[in-house]
C-alpha cells in the first residue's frame, strides 16, 4: 500500500452568516484517493461546508484556513480552485436554457472529444444518442439532471470531488449506477467527499466525519460513524424534521 497523502486539510475553520455561527472549530484532514463522507442531520452545516470549500461567493469570509495539497486556497475564487482540481456536484443542479448537454459537458471536460463525452453519459446510464443534443434545462427530470451533473464531473477529471446529497432525486434503480460512478471517480484518481444525511450513501465511503450544529462531533471509519449516526443522529433528525415541518425522506 502506498503512503497516504493529505489532499485537503481544514484548520480551525469557522463561518458566520447573518451574525450566526454556521460553522465552527472545524479541524479535519482528508486523505488522497479515498471516498470520504461528511454525514449529519438536516441543518448541520454540511452544504455550507461544501460551499466554503468550493469558494462560492457568499461563503468566502471564513476564519481559519483551507489547505489543498498543502497550499492555502482560501483567497482563491471558485474557478481558480476548480483549475487546481476541486469541484462540486450540487444537490439540486442548475438548469441552463439553450445549452445542450454536449456543450455543458464540453465546457467542463479536460478531453473534449465527442467519444469522451459519450463515455461519461454511458457511465451515468444516459444514452448519448438521446441526450447529447438535449438541452440541459428544465425539460430534464431531476434524476436526469443529476446524472448529467455527475457526467460533467467525470469529464472534468478532478482531483477532489465534493458531491452534495448525491442520491437525492435519483430513483432506486439508478442509485447503484451512481455508486459505481463514485468508485469510478476514485479509480480515476479523484478523492471524493460525499455530503449526505443518508446511511446508504455513508456506507459507500471509507472514512467519515460526523457533523452536527456546525461542528465536527466525531470522525473515523465509516462503520463506526454509521452506527453512531444510525443510533443517535437519525432519531434526533426525525424529531428536528417534525418540528420544522420538513418532509423527511429517509
Amino acid at each position, binding site marked *: 500500500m502506498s503512503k497516504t497523502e493529505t489532499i485537503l486539510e481544514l484548520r480551525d475553520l469557522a463561518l458566520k452568516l447573518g451574525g450566526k455561527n454556521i460553522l465552527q472549530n472545524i479541524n479535519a484532514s482528508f486523505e488522497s484517493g479515498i471516498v470520504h463522507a461528511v454525514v449529519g442531520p438536516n441543518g448541520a452545516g454540511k452544504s455550507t461546508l461544501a460551499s466554503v470549500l468550493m469558494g*462560492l461567493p457568499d461563503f468566502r469570509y471564513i476564519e481559519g484556513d483551507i489547505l489543498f495539497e498543502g497550499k492555502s486556497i482560501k483567497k482563491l475564487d*471558485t*474557478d481558480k480552485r476548480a483549475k487546481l482540481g*476541486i*469541484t462540486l456536484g450540487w444537490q439540486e443542479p*442548475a438548469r441552463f436554457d*439553450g*445549452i445542450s448537454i454536449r456543450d455543458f459537458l464540453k465546457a467542463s471536460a479536460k478531453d473534449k472529444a465527442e467519444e469522451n463525452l459519450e463515455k461519461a453519459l454511458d457511465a451515468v446510464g444516459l444514452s448519448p444518442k438521446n441526450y447529447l443534443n438535449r438541452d440541459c434545462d428544465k425539460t430534464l427530470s431531476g434524476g436526469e439532471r443529476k446524472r448529467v451533473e455527475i457526467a*460533467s464531473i467525470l469529464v472534468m477529471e478532478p482531483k477532489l470531488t465534493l458531491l452534495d446529497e448525491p442520491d437525492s432525486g435519483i430513483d432506486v434503480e439508478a442509485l447503484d449506477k451512481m455508486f459505481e460512478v463514485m468508485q469510478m471517480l476514485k479509480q480515476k484518481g479523484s478523492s471524493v467527499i460525499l455530503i449526505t444525511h443518508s446511511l446508504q450513501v455513508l456506507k459507500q465511503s471509507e472514512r467519515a466525519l460526523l457533523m452536527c450544529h456546525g461542528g465536527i462531533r466525531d470522525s473515523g471509519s465509516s462503520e463506526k460513524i454509521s452506527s453512531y449516526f444510525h443510533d443517535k443522529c437519525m432519531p434526533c433528525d426525525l424529531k428536528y424534521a417534525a418540528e420544522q415541518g420538513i418532509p423527511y425522506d429517509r
Partner: protein
Amino acid sequence: MTDKKTARHGAPSALDELLSSINKTADELHDKHTAHLVVHHNKVLGSHLVPGLKLDVEEIKDGIRAVIRIEENAVIKNPVQICFGMLPEKGTQKIIMDVGCGRNSKISIIAHCSFPNAIDISHIMEAVINIEDGAEYRYFERHVHGESGGTKVYPKAKVNLKKGARFATEFELVKGRVGLIDIDYETTCGEDSSLEMTARISGYADDIIKINETGHLTGKNSRGFLNSRIAVRDTARAEIFNKLTASAPGARGHVDCKEIVQDKAVASAIPVVEVSHPQARITHEAAIGSVDSKQLQTLMARGLSEKDAVALIIKGLLK
C-alpha cells in the same frame, strides 16, 4: 413579376458584397426549387419564384413595395431566401410588404437584413400580413449589423390570422451593434389560430432595444406565445412591452421574457395580460437581472473563468 437573374457580372458587385456580408454567395441562390429575392436599397438585384408564389415589386424612392401572394393550397417546400440591405454608410431603406397567404397554403421565409457599413442607416419595414384559413406563415428575420451602432431598424407589422391559421416569427440580432431597434407588431388571432413570436437580441455600447408586441386572442381556442430573450451590457437599454389579450373561450396565451443585464445596462419588461372571458387564460413569466448565480457558480466550479461562463450562459439564452 418574372425572374430577375441573380448572377455575378465580373467585378465584385453590390450583390456579391451584400451576400458575402450574410455568409452567402450568388451561386448558392441558383437552386431553381428555392425562391429568393435580393434587394439593395430600392433596387431588386435578383429574384426567383417557384410555383404557388407570386411576387410584385415596385421600386419606390428609398425602397420597395412588395406584394407577396401564396396561392390557395400551395405548399412552398423550401424556405424562401430574402436579403434586404444597404452597403453605403448612410441612407434609408423602406420595405413595404403586403403578404397574403391563401387558404391552406404554407410558406416559410428566411430574411437576412444586412447593413455592414452603416453609420447612419434607417431600415423601415411596414408589413400587412393576412393569413387565410388553415394557412401557415413562418418568418425568420436575421439582422447583421456593423460595429458602429449607426443602424436604426423599425419593423412594424399588422397581422391577421383567420380560422386555424398559424403565424410564427423569429427576430434575431445577435451579431454586431443593434444601434436602435424599435419593433412594433400587432396580431389578431381568429378561431383555432396560433401566434408565436420570438425575439433574440443582444445589445451593447449605447444600443437601444424597444419591443412592442401585441396579440389579441379573439377567436375561440386561439393560442398566443410572445417570447423575448434579450442580453444587454455596457450602457445599452432594453424596453420590452408584451401584451396579450384574450376574449374568447378556450383562448390560451403565455408571455415569456428573459433579460440578462450586465455592467450599467438597463432592462425593463412590461408584460400586460388582459382576459375578458372566463374560459380564457394567459400566463406570464419574466426574469430580468444579472446572470443566474447558480449557473455561473456551476460553470466556474468546472473551471471556466467568470467571463467564459457568462458568455456561455448568454449564448444559451440567445439560442
